[in-house]
Structure formats: structure tokens, C-alpha cells
């Protein structure tokens, strides 16, 4: 039996009186590509926040490769191998793309504490940053501040940042949100091309992208899991068609 990369146990997150996530249990084996789908307000992003540590769950537990990380702060989970992107692009607008990448690369090792040496003196960091940008097709933009590049390019950078924290499990929150069809294709190709030893958990609204990438799909509705299965099983399920596609 393969090891479980992520194990979420009876997780709930309550805002005021509203249970955004209402007792979700989820197991993702190492190396699997899991896509979460569900209508707006299903609790997908909140679940993500709770798993990666951005939010504290009200109840329940999160395990990463068998280790209980429920009480670990976000930076600790990143150090243990979680990487994530944000649904609403969350990069550093005043910094150059190269500086953005540098932050991601040194963030998971001790070099982030170095005070007596200029960033420019770390040739290997620079090389890795340029390679990372190259991998998402942004090599030509390295010296530009993020605020001068297009939205699509920021989404690519968003992905590159997450990839360069050396994640074992990567959480992608709607990586294609707001992109044009051609950019969409480019990003989903990039995701499909990621090494298979990275476990992937992804929220995606675009059913073609979602069902094309997923090994298995989890369907959320009103904070609960209503179905888990292969893309074909999900496609065929009547309940999913009802809540997700809005027709029977």
C-alpha cells in the first residue's frame, strides 16, 4: 500500500454560525493527482487554507506523510514539504521576478537569515531562479518588476514560486482562474508535465482541465464531500450533475 501524502480527518471550519467546511475527510496517496471540484461556496478554498495552515480549522486534523501538522504554523508546513498557490494572485508586486523567485528559493533553507552578504553574491540561487522562471516561460522577464508584467504572467510566476519551495505536496488553487484559453492551455500543460513524485491537490473550475489532469476527483458541496472517484465515475454521477452542472 502506498503511503498517504495527505490525510484530513473530520475537518471543519466555522465562520460565525456558518460551517464553510463541515466534517471533510480526505486521503491522498503519495504521487496522486487529486482535483477538488464543487460549486462556488462549496468550501474548497477554505479547506485548502486549513490544510496548508493559512487558517486554523475549528475541528479535525491534518496529517502530512503520517505526521500530525494540525497545530503547525504555515511556514513549518512549507518546510515539511507543502507548497501552494493562491486563487487570488499573491506575489510581490514591487520586486522583480528574479527577486520573487529568490524569496521562494531561500525561504525553505537557512540562507533566508543571511544578513552580511548580498543576494547577488549567491550565484547558485540566481541560476536556480532563472531556471525556475525558464520552466514557466518567464526567463525573458527576470529583471522586470512584477507590477509591469501581465496577469497571465503573474499566474505563471505564482506557480513558479510554489514549485521552488521544493514541495512534496503541491496545492494549486484554481491555477487557471481568469486566464485566456491559450494561457489556460499553457498552464495546464505545465501542470501535466510536473514530475510524478510531486503529489498534486488542485482546485479547478474548468471541467475539461480538471478531469483531464486528475487521477481521482473529490466533489465538495456545502462543505461536505459528496463523491470521490475517478474522472469517469464523476462524469457519470447524477448527483454531481445536479449540484455542479445545475441540470439533471
Amino acid at each position, binding site marked *: 500500500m502506498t503511503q498517504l501524502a495527505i490525510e484530513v480527518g473530520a475537518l471543519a471550519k466555522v465562520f460565525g454560525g456558518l460551517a464553510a467546511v463541515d466534517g471533510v475527510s480526505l486521503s491522498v496517496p503519495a504521487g496522486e493527482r487529486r482535483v477538488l471540484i464543487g460549486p462556488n461556496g462549496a468550501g474548497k478554498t477554505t479547506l485548502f487554507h486549513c490544510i496548508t495552515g493559512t487558517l486554523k480549522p475549528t475541528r479535525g486534523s491534518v496529517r502530512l506523510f503520517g505526521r500530525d501538522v494540525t497545530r503547525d504554523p*504555515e*511556514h513549518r508546513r*512549507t518546510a515539511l514539504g507543502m507548497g501552494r498557490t*493562491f486563487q487570488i494572485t499573491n506575489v510581490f*508586486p514591487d520586486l522583480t521576478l528574479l527577486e520573487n523567485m529568490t*524569496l521562494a528559493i531561500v525561504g525553505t533553507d537557512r540562507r533566508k*537569515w543571511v544578513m552580511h552578504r548580498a*543576494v547577488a553574491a549567491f550565484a547558485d540561487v540566481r541560476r536556480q531562479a532563472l531556471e525556475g522562471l525558464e520552466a514557466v516561460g518567464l526567463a525573458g522577464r527576470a529583471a522586470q518588476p512584477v507590477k509591469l508584467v501581465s496577469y497571465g504572467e503573474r499566474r505563471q510566476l505564482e506557480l513558479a514560486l510554489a514549485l521552488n519551495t521544493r514541495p512534496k505536496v503541491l496545492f494549486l488553487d484554481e491555477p487557471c482562474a481568469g486566464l485566456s484559453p491559450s494561457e489556460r492551455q499553457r498552464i495546464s500543460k505545465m501542470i501535466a508535465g510536473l514530475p510524478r513524485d510531486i503529489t498534486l491537490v488542485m482546485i479547478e473550475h474548468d471541467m475539461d482541465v480538471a478531469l483531464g489532469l486528475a487521477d481521482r476527483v473529490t466533489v465538495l458541496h456545502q462543505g461536505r464531500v459528496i463523491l470521490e472517484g475517478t474522472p469517469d465515475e464523476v462524469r457519470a454521477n447524477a448527483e454531481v450533475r445536479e449540484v455542479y452542472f445545475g441540470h439533471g
Partner: protein
Amino acid sequence: MDRGRLALSLIALAAALALPFVAGPFWTGLATQMYIFGLLALSVDLLLGHAGLFSLTHASFFAVSAYTVAILQVRYAVPTTLAAPAGILAGTLLAAVFGISVRTRGVYFILITIALGYVVWGVAHRWSSFTGGDNGVTNVPFPAIGGVGITSHTQYYYLVLAVILLCALGYRVLIRSPFGLGLRGIKASETRMQSLGYRTSAHLYAAFVLSGALASLAGVLYVYYNRFVNPVASSFPISVEAALMAIVGGSGTIIGPFLGAGVVLGLRNWVSSFFEMHHAIMGAVFIATVLWAPDGLVGIAARLRARFSRPKEPGP
């Protein structure tokens, strides 16, 4: 560094070195103050311009350091070689305690630093038996290392100049280091930094203590220049002025806080010679800066440079 900036730096350095010879003691004294308060403003700006934290308690570290030096030198005849480091240590230790304020953000951070600043001012003001109350501690000697001592304000000017140049160089390395880049990352998006593996409070705490150490060094330079220290050094207006200097000069730069210190001190000297309510003028300068030149003097210079060096656009 490009050639233009290098040339400009060398000219500025030459002017600074020549100043005591070409200008009288008044200007030399004003320049010394500008360096000292510029250093204080620079320390505030490590948090303000890089990490995005608006501290209003930096007069505390400045004053605790100055008081420590003054009390050790005057009452216990401790030599400069011990008193000066003790001053920096005392101010830095206080910063290590006040650093708990980085648990808060935004307006709460500002409020808590104001409150902490008032605690120090209250102690300086009320604990007369130790701090000398309103009179403070007077008759602080010029600094002396071994048998070699400073004997004039001109000599002291050069000492201060040397210290701030070293600080500026060190600061330059710091803000270009991975740590310094991390601070700018936190200023831009703390949530993203956490998801990249940064324990952001630890980073901000370290920056706060470093910044406090720099303010303490400014306090040492101040007390040997002023030759006395009283509760005014620890007061809220000093903290505000330090931030004001950084913003007027150009937050996020190294030269900016020093330029800002020059403007604020120069204006105050000039305006107060004929207008009693010179504080009102300072307020007006601050408002004008925030409204029309949020990047300060350095920002204005950059804008002018961009305007004049822009290539001619082809006609229609």
C-alpha cells in the same frame, strides 16, 4: 553602482570632508546633528521603508542609550570604551523587549509603539533620583579612547561622519542580503511569505532589534555631541520627527533619511529664528510631502531625472 551615482557620492563625500574648513562652527554643528538624526531616521526606516512597520518608539532606544552613556561617564567615570558599548547594549536590550510589538500589525503596531515610548519618557521624566528628572544628566565629556580624546566639535564632526559612513555601508549590505529582501517580501505580502516558508514574526523581530541597535548608536553619538541628555530625547516628538525625516527624504533609501534630517533640522533652525510656532511649519511640510511627494526628495530627484533623460518621442 553606475558612474553618475558614483561621481555624485564622491562629490558629496568631498563636500562633507571639506565642510568644517569652508563653513563656520554653526554649519558644522548643524551637519553633525543632521548625521546623528539621519542615522536615527535610517534606523526607523529599516522598519518603515523595508518591512512596512511604522514605529513611533525609536526615541526610546535613542534616549536609553544616551542616558546610559551619560550616567556611566558622569556619575561613575566609566571610560568611553566601555560606556559607549554599554549604551548600545542597553538600547538594544530594550529593543529586544519592545520587539514584542511585532506581534501586532498596522494601526495596532503604531499604537503599541506610542504607548511603549511614553513609558520610557515617563521613567526619564519622573525617576528624578536616577535620571535627573527634567534637568537630565549634564556635563557629559567628549569621548576619549585610551589616551586619545576628542577635543573640539570639528574633530567630533569627523568622528560622527566616519561612523555614519560605516553604518551606511553596513546597512547597504543588510538591505541587499537575503534577509533584507525577506523584509521587503513581508512588506508586500506577509501571507505569501509564510506560505514560502518564512516565519515572518521572527524576521520582523530581528529587524526590530537591529533597528533598535542602530537607534542606540545614534543615541551614543547624540549624547557626546549634546554633552547632556534630558527627557526630551525620549519624547514622542523625537520619534515622530525621525519618521518624518525618513519620509521627507525618501523612505526605503539610504541617503533619504539623511537628506530628510537636513531639511527638517535646517528648516527648524531657520523658521524658529523668526516664527514661534515652528512646529506648525513642520506639520505643513509633512502634509505636503505625503500629498505631493510621497517618495520624498529622492523620489522628486528620480522623477526629474526621468523627465530630462526621456528620449524624445517621434512626432505624429
